[in-house]
């Protein structure tokens, strides 16, 4: 992946990940400052989800076409799909992914009707972090691409977010009566922590790559 990207793209990636870090820390900070007050926390989580999706969209717009994208465009051309149709499909799939996430969250034990707002906020957060972002970068066959491990950044992030959200359910049963144990804060915080971890990991990978590149240049 990395070999094919130019320095401009790498810089953009670094910038994107740093912004991701900033956003993640920011939303955690807001939640902590609000004293884990539910309504305001949910509000900031939704805002964060939107922000992340926007960031991804902007990056996609700025990035020069990469290899997978070129192939996707080529395919699109051969099959005579217009760009608008492609965008429409991505939006449709994003909505589907939010609904799908919501269904899975409910299947995993969230209440169906009670706390529906909280549950939906969590689904929005997880879907935008784990599914909508890859959909924006990779196009409509994102799921397959993820499973094929073609785009390391998206894959690491998606999996980290999903696993961390899942692990966030474990503190819920404890009888500590802490404000952050309220549904869906543990899972949401888990998701954001997963995202932060993945971003840090990815930045470190970029850093070491950049380092070798720089060394190579020096030689």
């Amino acid at each position: 992946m990395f070999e094919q990207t130019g320095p401009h793209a790498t810089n953009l990636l670094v910038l994107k990940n740093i912004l991701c870090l900033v956003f993640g820390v920011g939303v955690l900070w807001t939640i902590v400052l609000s004293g884990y007050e539910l309504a305001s926390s949910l509000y900031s989580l939704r805002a964060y989800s939107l922000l992340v999706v926007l960031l991804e969209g902007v990056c996609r717009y700025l990035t020069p076409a990469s290899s997978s994208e070129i192939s996707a465009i080529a395919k699109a051309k051969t099959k005579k799909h217009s760009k608008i149709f492609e965008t429409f499909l991505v939006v449709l799939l994003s909505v589907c992914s939010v609904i799908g996430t919501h269904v899975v969250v409910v299947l995993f034990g969230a209440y169906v009707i009670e706390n529906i707002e909280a549950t939906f906020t969590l689904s929005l957060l997880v879907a935008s972090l784990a599914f909508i972002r890859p959909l924006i970068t990779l196009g409509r066959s994102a799921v397959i691409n993820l499973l094929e491990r073609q785009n390391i950044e998206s894959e690491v992030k998606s999996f980290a977010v999903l696993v961390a959200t899942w692990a966030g359910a474990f503190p819920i049963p404890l009888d500590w009566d802490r404000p952050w144990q309220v549904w869906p804060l543990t899972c949401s915080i888990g998701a954001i922590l997963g995202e932060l971890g993945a971003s840090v990991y990815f930045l470190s990978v970029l850093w070491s790559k950049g380092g070798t590149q720089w060394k190579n240049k020096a030689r």
Partner: protein
Amino acid sequence: MPPFRKTIILLIDALRYDFALYNASLKDDDTLPYQNKMPVFGEIVKQHPHQALLSPFMADAPTTTMQRLKGLTTGSLPTFIDASLNFASEEIEEDNIIDQLVRHGRRVTILGDDTWGGLFPGRFSRSHLYSSFNVMDLHTVDRGVLSHLGEEMGRGDWEVIVAHFLGVDHCGHRYGPNHPQMATKLAQMNEAVLQVIAGMDNDTLLLVLGDHGMTQTGDHGGDSREEVEAALFVYSPALHLPSPPVHTLPVAQVDLVPTLALSLGVPVPFSSLGKVMEDVLVTAGMSAEEAEKQRHLGLHLNVQQVKRYLTAYRELGNSYPQDLWHKLELLEGKALEKSSVGGQRTAFSEYLTLAKLMCEEIWARFDVQEMLSGLCLMLSVLLMAGLLIHSSALTDIKTHIIKRLLILTVVVNLLFALSLSFGFVIFGYAANVLILLWMYAHRQHLTVSQLDFKAIDCIPLLLVSFLLLGSFSNSFVVVENYVVAFILLSCITLYLLLLMLEIVSKKLSSGKMLKVFGNAFSVTCGTGWAAAVVCVRCSGWFWRCREEQHWCLPGQAQVPLSGLPQHLHNWRYFTSVLPLALAVWLPRRWLLLCGNLNGSRVGVVLARTVPVACSVLVAVWWAIQAVMAAHNLDLWGHVIPPRVIYAATAVHVAVLACVPLLIYELPPAASRKSQPLVSDNPSTLIPHLYKSLMEKYRTQNSKGPTIPIVYGLATGLSASMVAVLMVVVVVVVLVAGDGLSGAVLLLVLVAAASLLLQALWKLKTCHNLKELARPGWSAACLWFTLSIHGFYLTGHQPTFPALHWSAAFVGVEGAQSVGNWAPALLVGLNTYSSYLLLGLALPLVVVAPLALSVVFPSLRGSRLEGDEISRGEFLLVEEPDMLRESLMSTALSYIFLQAAKVFCTSLAAFVLRRHLMLWKIFAPHFIFEAVGLIVTLLSVLAGLGFTLRVQAALASWGERLVKAA
């Protein structure tokens, strides 16, 4: 004429003796927060030494409030499980002081902790009760009591007032004794006692007492001195105590009941073991002689009562330690011989002390040594099982090792028999040493050959270990039904994820969603996952609420049809019959699909008729029950349907065990032409085996004409098992009752979906038969989680009030006619139905991939040679060693996980034996798991035995066929 007309009991929860003791030598600045905060006791005793008494008040462990209240009112010692006749309600059913008071016209007023309301519903003439649930709340109960206490004392309509303060206990739980809050709380209590004393009449007896103490961290429940030593303060203006002794003697808490009873002039409750405090019976007006007589009378009544109880207890078939019982009888004789009143008195008190001692001896207490030896034994057995699973001893079955293992088992169990005379500790360690020695001696066979843990094995093991660790946390045990469902869902989803990864990795960069996920295999994966997940999620309808799950609303499923309102009867009836019908129809459909229900073999005929007939009978029985309940009838013969079902099941299982073959040989050549061809009649699909058999025989002996055609051979191994399970499911539904038939169906569906996913995974990843037939840890973890999930799904909780007692009356008319074992067995079957079903069905895990690959050839992976695998389960019949090995390893892994769960729960109960919630959460959890392990062991053994029996029958049938050809 009783010594006192009225009594006020101030029960200050967790009032430790040193909280009440006044130490004048301490300066105010030096005192700890709990010291010298209740000077009232010291002052009163100093001012009126003949009217007041303060002494340690020794509780019996478990020192939890509920158990203590039972002890304080019945006067009996706590037993391990409070062995009352009815677990279902909290109500005390033994004879107790409150009942005696009410029966003799005394009016009792209660203030404070609402536990009393649950223990004695409807007994109190007036009550002001407050919830004791929130341990963080220090004041609600106390303020409530204080606001009503003065007013209630002023009323004339009481003989006994019980005021139960909770603040000190809650303060201990929240802050511990060393906290300024405790000082405030104790000062408040001091004030309360002062007020009561000021407002008392002359003929009133005041008792201030703690039910238990607390540790330095404010906990209680165990048997340390701090927890056991509570305070007792007795005071009455009318009292005349002898001169106070220099050293105050401790009083046992059971002594309260006889003292209270005799001082108020009511009979001592039947099961009380206490010894009356005879000095409290003496009032100020009495002469010395009268006082002596009064003491003597009290003790004499007390001895008669205790003796009556001990004799009755013995006549129930219980035994006492021989020497102690003998001594007691001697003492009694001596007391009657003695002429002097004083001599008799000493003999009486000795008798009472000894009687209590004897009962303490035979009733429960913590024996750390025995617990440790038991835990060590469990650990070493677990270690051995773990080594066996991975060692070479199983991979190429060495019968002599298995035989030696059998000898070891017999020896250990013989040791167990010996332990009755030598004590369990020695036995435990001896057995432990034996097992370790055995393992050492066989170390070359037990070396772990290869440990290739893949993601599919590791992650479920990790999940299961979360579940096991949860046993140590009370909050995780309380919500275990949610945790297990979550972990089960995670396991199932993991299968789906890995399968998806596997599918995608094979079709690299094809890019198209539909192309990759549109084939039969992927669709089956998705459907199986969705079915399993939805079924697990729906299980919430059938969960039963634990007492601690305060958010949980009890569902309707727990209520039997007769308990529902009239307009719901039809709805309930049909929603119960439909799952029952499905639970029978689906396996039947499967067997038809496999061609196992053709022909007229005995087994086939039974498998075709018995499950259907039984399920119809179940529906009929439910209808009869509903009619009887609605019209209050007692129909003759209403117990016949269940009994017929039991009998039919027994016959069915026995016959299938003897002639287990569910196959149909087509009559050869001549008559075959008239039979329709396979392709003409797709509804009776002939498994592909027939082709391969044909080819096999063609290559072996090319004579040609006599080619046997057999229906259902490819699933011959599992079909008999399925046929047995069908009937067992019907019986389980019968015993579970109409409300829970849906739960049983859900369990069957989840199990089927798990088998499907596991089989798909195996078909996708395995390269040869050996791998295919070895399910590995992932399947064991899935099956284990499922068994626990099934326990909760069928409406159970590991607490005694949650047992389904109604199951005891399914097909049993009167308990007297059959004894206790039948109802006990039925309740056990109801409680452990999931352990039974899943244990029996365990061999299906091994054979499922083979059966599936034959019946749905499109699911077969490309890695396995098509021709070989189309023979299905018959492959394993031809390789008995492989079958035995994979059955053994699967069963061992499954049992290993169950045993690990029992080990964790017992370790939790041991480590947390001082925990507040031991008797409510950890101990019942351990007991339920331990019994579950026994059920698992028996059912897994039965399942294995049955499968091997089928295999032997199929093998001998095959030999005969070859000979005939």
